[in-house]
């Protein structure tokens, strides 16, 4: 039994395919969706999505927030941004995170703190996604 899975951002369709299961970070904690899940709409927080492909391979993605809508045989994620871990450059993600934190620490005036916090969360999610992706890569080989 497979789930029709689709993850879209305002700019594009990031991934659309059949999957076995997926784990997403919702505002109330991580959930794993298997086929025949009850209909659910939840908002997501920045974090890592893990998708189990039909060939048992795990695809890791970083999201920065959005929504998940679950139907018995279909899962749709409306993400603000989504990136595949394989496409993220870890060094640059880490750099972006430090930069965001520095801006936060400098406590400059006229800075939108919630925006920076969101940015930190996003970059942390990206770093985490890459690390998990790498970690698994070394296991299997």
């Amino acid at each position, binding site marked *: 039994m497979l789930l*029709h899975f*689709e993850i*879209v*951002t*305002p*700019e*594009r*369709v990031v991934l*659309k395919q059949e999957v076995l299961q997926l784990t997403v970070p*919702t*505002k*109330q904690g991580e959930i794993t969706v298997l086929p025949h899940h*009850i*209909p*659910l*709409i*939840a*908002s997501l927080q920045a974090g890592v999505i893990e998708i189990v492909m039909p060939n048992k391979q795990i695809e890791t993605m970083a999201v920065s927030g959005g*929504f998940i*809508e679950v*139907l018995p*045989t*279909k899962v*749709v994620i*409306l993400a603000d941004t989504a990136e595949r871990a394989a496409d993220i450059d870890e060094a640059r993600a880490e750099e972006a995170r430090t930069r965001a934190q520095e801006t936060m620490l400098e406590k400059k005036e006229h800075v939108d703190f919630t925006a920076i916090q969101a940015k930190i969360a996003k970059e942390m999610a990206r770093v985490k996604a890459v690390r998990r992706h790498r970690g698994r890569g070394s296991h299997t080989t």
Partner: protein
Amino acid sequence: MASTRDIIRRIKSVKNTKKITQAMELVSAAKMRRAIEAVLATRSYANLSWLTVLNLAEVADRNENLHTLLNPRKEVKKVAIILITSNRGLCGGFNANIISKAVNSIKLHSDVETDCIILGKKGAAINYRYGYNLAAEFEKPDVTNEVEEVIPTARLVINDYLSGKYDKVMLAYTDFISTVKQVPRVKQLLPIDISQKDEYLGVIGSQAGEASTPRFHEGAAMSPEVVSEKQKKHFENREYIFEPSPREVLDEMIPRLVEIQMFQALLESNASEHSARMMAMRNATDAASDMIDDLTLTYNKARQAAITSEIAEIAGGAQALESH
């Protein structure tokens, strides 16, 4: 008759202009293609988020407590209109059309005060030509491919709407129907009217009764089966679980819907702008070709006349010598 050298000079200058307009046409065609692709890529998100909001509103309806951004206000005192124009000219009637459409829609409701929020430099004409108040002027990037570029504008109107500064927010943009047809449109952005499906949301070139361009549908990212399944679900069984709660999800989802609508309107306007410019430049190129033909004919005539008169002179001279 102008001297042949003058005509040659004119021909040269027209040829140069033609080269430029031809290049601009090609550039606009490429930009237009990119803008169309961008609109198509947003359709999936737009349609899905629209359906989700509908589902949510259906649920929220039961406890009578809809979201503020969904409730129409009883009294409309002040309206904001977001006007999307281009930054540059040389695009035919593109800016004039959208501005006059916006002005007409403002005039329809002359009893309410209207503020204009403009995106794109040419929109300032609504202020200096028609004298409407400008509330904000946002810089429009030349290339739009991220939703982040409309977020400041969306935030502004949402906040002003919530604070009660505006009771309605309209959006004036140019709908891209095909390369030869673009329609200026004014639609209501806030409050969101969930009772009617927004049929123009991300729909390029498919409109009842109007010229549709099927090739744009092929690339459509929206999967109809998702919509149909969701609709079936939506009617058959409304037992959705909401996390954390329907209200909170709506709170987050609705600003997104406003953003995506604005983003799409911006992309549509961009596609329209580039195709309008492409057509204008094509016409200019054609006009230049005609002019070159005309001038070449004049040049040849002038050259022939010069030769004829020269021969006549020589013949006349020879005859004069003979008779002498």
